């Protein structure tokens, strides 16, 4: 049957939950980052679903908002990966469990 | 902007194959179950575009034509043994590749190694979905088809990286890292260059751009020479054609990310390299050379034949550079992308914006476009020359002839030599 608002929201929710699980459970910092990216994408999806189906004169506001989340996600990914690489340079590991020293 | 209907729309009028397929689909519409007609339309569109344009062009222009033309550049004949004038050479190559043994090194990551060729082929087929072959002969006429092309052309980079990474071989890791680094740094100026086009035509859809060029009777290559230069260099960097084929540079890293491939897996990469080059030249023909329009001639000559001719014309440009230019080093390439092409693209954007603003504000009539064309061409030449001078291009103080000395003695310092540096 044709996909309505509930279907898109459901997919968004499941994606968010899996991204959340990945972010919390992965040992490698890059794995955590992947989880975060997935969560941001799920949010984008839900935003667009609402902007597409909800009443309201101008659905474009939802899409404008998604553009801003994409830019924030890109900036955040760049900085997080830079962080991971520089931590790797000092610690030779980016294993989330082992990174407990605050001193450089 | 509904595309203009051709003179006749009988089914036998092969000038627009759209009539034929629509007539066929209407007759089948009631026979097939409810949704199947759309699937059938998709299949017909795909088979038509592939059988008429992509496959023959890939084989006969990509493999045979390229080898013949490059042979001519090198003052030799090129393939003329297999079949009449060597025309069956590509088929012979394909058969040879198919029966060759496809080796997989023991320490390679088998899953990725098998996936990479498939992932390299899929985007190439997708690219042809958006290219308009005729007035209503475009497979998927979305309003963002230009952006679709740029987006899909980012996918083969990932599959090339996977291919190189999965071989677990030093040369291929070299090749894949180079390929990704170069593709990323050439995508930025490429997109900025295309932005100039979008600014002028005002639409993102390729069909819209073709119609714009048809109504104003001007080709965008005249209006935007810098954008064409940037597009050509950016695309030849992304497809790894010769001035920038460092990802599989034979003389340095054997075959880059294709080192361990053999048999049909290598064949797929080789075939799809040509496919991407064809897609890029089809895109350039649509955007820069006026697509299927030829100043009104398209009412008599079938538009898709005009389009195919222009694509092969642009493809000849790729062949020409491949036959004559040596290869740049990776750091020179990166420097060239960021220090030369990006500023040029930005300045071009500013120029186009002012022209567009002038055109819209003054509501000048459409003939002002020809003035813009003149201004842009002159500005392009001046800009390229001035910017290269700034970046240190001094051809006159490089000697082009060795010094000549009469007698054999010790070291001859530069100034006192008889010949001197011309």
């Amino acid at each position, binding site marked *: 049957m044709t996909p309505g608002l509930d279907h898109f929201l459901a997919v968004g929710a499941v994606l968010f939950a899996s991204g*959340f699980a990945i972010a*919390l*459970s992965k040992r490698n910092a890059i794995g955590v980052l992947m989880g975060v990216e997935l969560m941001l994408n799920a949010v984008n999806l839900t935003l667009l679903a609402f902007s597409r189906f909800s009443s309201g004169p*101008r659905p474009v506001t939802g899409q404008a908002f998604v553009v801003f989340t994409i830019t924030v996600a890109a900036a955040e990914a*760049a900085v997080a990966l830079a962080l991971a690489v520089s931590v790797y340079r000092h610690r030779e590991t*980016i294993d989330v*469990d082992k990174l407990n020293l605050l001193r450089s | 902007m509904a595309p203009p209907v051709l003179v006749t729309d009988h089914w036998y009028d092969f000038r627009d194959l759209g009539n034929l397929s629509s007539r066929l689909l209407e007759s089948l519409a009631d026979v097939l179950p409810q949704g199947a007609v759309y699937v059938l339309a998709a299949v017909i569109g795909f088979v038509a575009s592939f059988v008429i344009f992509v496959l023959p062009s890939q084989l006969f222009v990509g493999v045979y034509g390229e080898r013949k033309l490059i042979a001519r550049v090198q003052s030799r004949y090129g393939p003329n043994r297999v079949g009449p004038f060597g025309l069956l050479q590509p088929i012979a190559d394909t058969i040879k590749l198919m029966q060759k043994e496809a080796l997989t090194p023991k320490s390679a990551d088998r899953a990725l190694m098998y996936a990479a060729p498939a992932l390299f082929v899929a985007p190439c087929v997708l690219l042809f979905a958006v290219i308009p072959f005729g007035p209503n002969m475009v497979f998927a006429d979305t309003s*963002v088809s230009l952006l679709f092309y740029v987006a899909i052309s980012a996918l083969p980079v990932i599959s090339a990286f996977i291919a190189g990474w999965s071989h677990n071989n030093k040369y291929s890791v070299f090749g894949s890292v180079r390929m990704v680094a170069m593709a990323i740094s050439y995508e930025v100026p490429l997109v900025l260059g295309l932005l100039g086009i979008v600014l002028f035509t005002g639409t*993102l859809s390729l069909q819209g751009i073709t119609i714009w060029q048809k109504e104003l009777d001007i080709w965008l290559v005249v209006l935007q020479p810098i954008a064409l230069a940037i597009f050509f260099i950016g695309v030849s960097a992304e497809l790894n054609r010769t001035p920038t084929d460092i990802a599989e540079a034979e003389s340095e890293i054997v075959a880059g990310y294709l080192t361990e491939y053999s048999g049909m897996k290598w064949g797929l990469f080789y075939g799809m390299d040509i496919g991407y080059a064809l897609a890029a030249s089809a895109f350039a023909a649509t955007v820069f050379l006026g697509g299927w329009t030829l100043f009104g001639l398209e009412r008599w000559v079938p538009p898709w034949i005009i389009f195919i001719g222009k694509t092969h014309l642009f493809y000849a440009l790729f062949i020409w550079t491949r036959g004559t230019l040596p290869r740049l080093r990776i750091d020179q390439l990166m420097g060239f992308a960021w220090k030369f092409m990006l500023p040029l693209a930005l300045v071009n954007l500013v120029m186009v914006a002012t022209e567009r603003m002038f055109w819209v504000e003054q509501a000048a009539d459409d003939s002002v476009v020809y003035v813009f064309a003149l201004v842009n061409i002159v500005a392009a030449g001046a800009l390229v020359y001035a910017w290269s001078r700034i970046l240190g291009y001094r051809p006159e103080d490089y000697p082009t002839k060795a010094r000549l000395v009469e007698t054999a003695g010790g070291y001859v310092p530069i100034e006192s030599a008889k010949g001197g540096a011309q």
Partner: protein
Amino acid sequence: MEGVGAAVAFWTLAGVTLFAAAGIMFSRNLLHAVLLLILTFIGIAGFFVLLSAEFLAMAQVIIYVGAIAVLVLFAVLLTPRAGRDNGESKMLLPAVLLAVCLGAVVLFVITDTSWNTVPSAPAVEHEPKVAASDLGEALLSTWILPFELASVLLTAALVGAILLVRSPEEEAEDMPS
């Protein structure tokens, strides 16, 4: 959004995306996880097309698949001895439990409330088509301030990322001698 086509597209995309998301969770090799992440990005771009936001779908493919995924690949490349296995940390069990609860709560909320959507199913004719030009105008008219802020943020992130990753030699180079 004709009925049958959209439904078929929706369920296949949902299947592909969720399979890939689960794959990231359970795959053993980090690189396979990154490639599955790319698959999810493409799946989500497909969803955007279904929600008739084509410009955003293409932007998503360019930015996520073209740039961020390659960034992650490079990060994996630059950390060779940091273990390429996609292992779980000690927090595996609590993480999964928390995620499941969160998912359950949100799903319940979705199915329970009745959203006042646009009258009838998306098959309605005057489907609010948002062309790229409307989005452009919106970004530069009503949303001009966040647009400028976003560019400032991107520049800050750019400079920050470069500074973080400078190797000692590069720093020594720029140190005033």
